[in-house]
């Protein structure tokens, strides 16, 4: 059956993997992260999207040179075994921290909305178990889950209706009302929300139609960007600038604006539904981290998933100060930026090496 073959991912799998791995908890806080721009943030995701598309291109380019290897192998091939492996270690470490950051962010949100006055240890454990279950099915299972998550949660857009009705479109004017410093700040903080598309560096070897992979991944990226755009746009319409800056989880409050006759608090349903998006993002990361551990230990082992999951769990529940944890997560975010530019560096190394060989 298809599971025995190496090439597993159809075009729509690629689209939704790229889309879902970007669209996790980041979007919940995106309007707040971009708030240094004030009302002009409405169209800012477009800029982020352009940056993402530009950085996606070198990724695909370097991958197309090694159609059967993932980034971990390419690192070793291009940089030598030791530098490559230590680089890989770094990436795995980043993924693990990133996973922990996503879960702890989300759980914090759940604790404030859905489960007040309760410890979240067991929900975290269940979440991680579920995550392991999804990832154990391989990349195809992850891709399928991403797809389902997208279609199950897209109806949530409807709940923005009330916020749009109440909002004021004139807020988006004047356009581009910010200076360079504010913009840099916004990119620095906000780009984080759209991280995730770089995971194509790891599942690229499994793609069936690698020639069109760029197109498909780009489509996925732009679906996410458009969703981000809708979110920031509606937030700008609905909030005052002060609220944009100070309301944590802006999207949550957007959901609060609405009500159905039989359900008064859509925000709780929305936030708990969000677990699908969180799971799909995390599944892609966990799968990549597992591949990394596979390549470092040079053998495939199901145990690797459990190891990483256990580490993530420990990072979340170990009782150390909130500050250190935040710092740690911050570090992982910046390491995430490193991964975005890494393929450019690798491409240069690749070209230099090629020249050497030709000489």
């Amino acid at each position, binding site marked *: 059956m298809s599971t025995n073959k190496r090439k597993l991912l159809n075009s*729509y799998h690629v689209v939704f993997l790229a889309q879902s791995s970007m669209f996790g908890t980041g979007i919940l806080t995106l309007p707040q992260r971009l708030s240094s721009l004030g009302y002009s943030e409405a169209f800012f995701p477009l800029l982020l999207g352009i940056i993402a598309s530009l950085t996606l291109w070198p990724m695909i380019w370097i991958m197309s040179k090694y159609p059967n290897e993932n980034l971990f192998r390419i690192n070793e091939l291009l940089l030598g075994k030791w530098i490559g492996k230590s680089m890989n270690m770094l990436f795995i470490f980043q993924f693990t921290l990133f996973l922990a950051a996503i879960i702890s962010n989300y759980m914090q949100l759940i604790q404030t909305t*859905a*489960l007040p006055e309760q410890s979240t240890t067991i*929900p975290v454990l269940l979440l991680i178990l579920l995550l392991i*279950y999804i990832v154990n099915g391989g990349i195809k299972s992850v891709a399928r889950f991403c797809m389902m998550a997208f279609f199950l949660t897209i109806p949530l857009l409807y709940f923005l209706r009330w916020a749009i009705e109440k909002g004021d479109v004139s807020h988006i004017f004047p356009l581009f009302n910010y200076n360079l410093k504010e913009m840099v700040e916004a990119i620095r903080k906000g780009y984080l929300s759209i991280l995730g598309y770089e995971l194509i560096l790891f599942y690229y070897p499994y793609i069936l139609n690698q020639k069109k992979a760029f197109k498909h991944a780009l489509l996925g990226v732009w679906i996410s960007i458009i969703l981000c755009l809708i979110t920031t746009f509606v937030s700008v319409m609905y909030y005052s600038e002060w609220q944009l800056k100070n309301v944590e989880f802006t999207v949550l409050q957007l959901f609060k604006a609405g009500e159905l006759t039989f359900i*008064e608090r859509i925000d*709780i349903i929305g936030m708990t539904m969000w*677990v*699908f998006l969180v799971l799909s993002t995390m599944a892609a990361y966990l799968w990549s981290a597992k591949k990394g551990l596979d390549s470092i230990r040079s053998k495939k082992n199901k145990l690797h998933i459990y190891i990483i999951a256990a580490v993530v769990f420990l990072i979340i529940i170990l009782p150390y100060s909130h500050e250190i944890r935040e710092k740690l997560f911050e570090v992982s975010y910046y390491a995430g930026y490193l991964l975005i530019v890494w393929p450019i560096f690798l491409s240069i190394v690749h070209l230099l090496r090629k020249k050497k060989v030709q000489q």
Partner: protein
Amino acid sequence: MKNRKLVRTTIGRPSQKREQNKMKDQPEQPIEIIKKHTSQINDVIYKKVLTDDGLVTVIYSNSLVEKMTLQIMVLMPLANHLNQIHQVSEIMDLSKLEEIYFKLISGYTLLYFHQTNLLVGLDTYSAPSRTITNTETESTVIGPQDSFTESLETNISLVKRRIRNPMLKNENRIIGSETNTNISILYIDDIVNKENLETVRSRIDKINYPAFNDISILKQLMEDNPYSPFPQFYLTVRPDSISHYLIDGRIAILMDSSQSAIICPTSFLEMFVSIEDYYNRWTTASLLRFLRFFGFFLTIMITPMYVSTLTFHPEILPYELLLNLQESRAKVPFPPLFEVLFIELIIEVLREAGSRMPAKVGQTIGIVGGIVIGTAAVEAGLISNILIVLVATSALLSFLPPIFLMSNTSRFVRYIFILSAGMFGLMGQMLAFAWLIAHLLRLNSLGTPFMSPIIPRKAGDLKDGIFRFPITFLRNKTGISRSQKK
């Protein structure tokens, strides 16, 4: 058995003494070897008949062959038209004793011609069978009313009557180390996917299980994930349903002494498809399918929702409703989780008790359970009246899937949801829902993703998914079967 020695020269059970005599004066006759070998079968009857071709011994198993059949098929031709026997019978190899033995226990009548030293066999198996009746488990208003019986031949003939196509093949196999049950794999040769067929064959060959009393045992042994609560193959007693899927390129498996038949591969959505959908107008059919499909999700969501809103998120409900709930729960001694588990279990008990009882008593049980317990429990303040409404609705909804196994599954899955709702409210429910989705996504039916066409094999399948498009759109084969023809 011994008092049957009425016919001319019958030997019921040869006495020990005679056998010894024979052993002495002549070399061992083939008939004696057979006798020895089949001595374990208690009801074998040996009849010696004198015919034009000399002495013939008729051997058959008394319980498997009916008197009338024997008379018409064997004894009358023996006396009058010996040629007829030679034409219809098959010649057996005397040295293959195992085969002879096996033929005997499958209802063959063996004729041993002493003069020519020839052993021939005639299939005189006359199984006790009932007539074809209406189906009770999958009855429909529109469409053919016949259903399978417990006889394999009848069932195959019911299918073949619907598909008059030389390419419709049935492969017979015998499974079960103790029961030696006949099964038949049905498929249409130029439509079916060969890879699927090979998988089915190899899975059946690998099975090592002693007894098959119903085809559902075979089904559980063949499924891709036997640990899952979800049935992964379609089970039906309707020949029209079988023929519908055969033409789509699926494989059907029928078993002797079992009323239902397996269809594989299948998908999650098809568990909510009744063959009647294709007989109804497309509008009605779509509506019904939509109901069944969402009924499944509602039935696993309604009561957990009650638990989670009452324990964790009272703010979700409108104020007035909440006050009503508060009032109706004022006297209830249990927390919502136990309240729901209590009443759900009562419903299960009612259902179970009702289904085991004779139909007339069953009705009483329904009345006693539904009305007396329900009203009394509310009046006594054991449960809130709103919960009764919810539980009753979800119990009704759970009967919507046309496949009974699916409705059982929904009952089971509901408990997972109730427990997780009791622990973490909506968060727990969503976690359970995510588990359900992840689980369904990982399931396969004969290698085909169980969630197709939602995870599409082919976009065209969506036309026959939650909504049924008008029949003219449905000419193509579905992607699930990966058929050779389009």
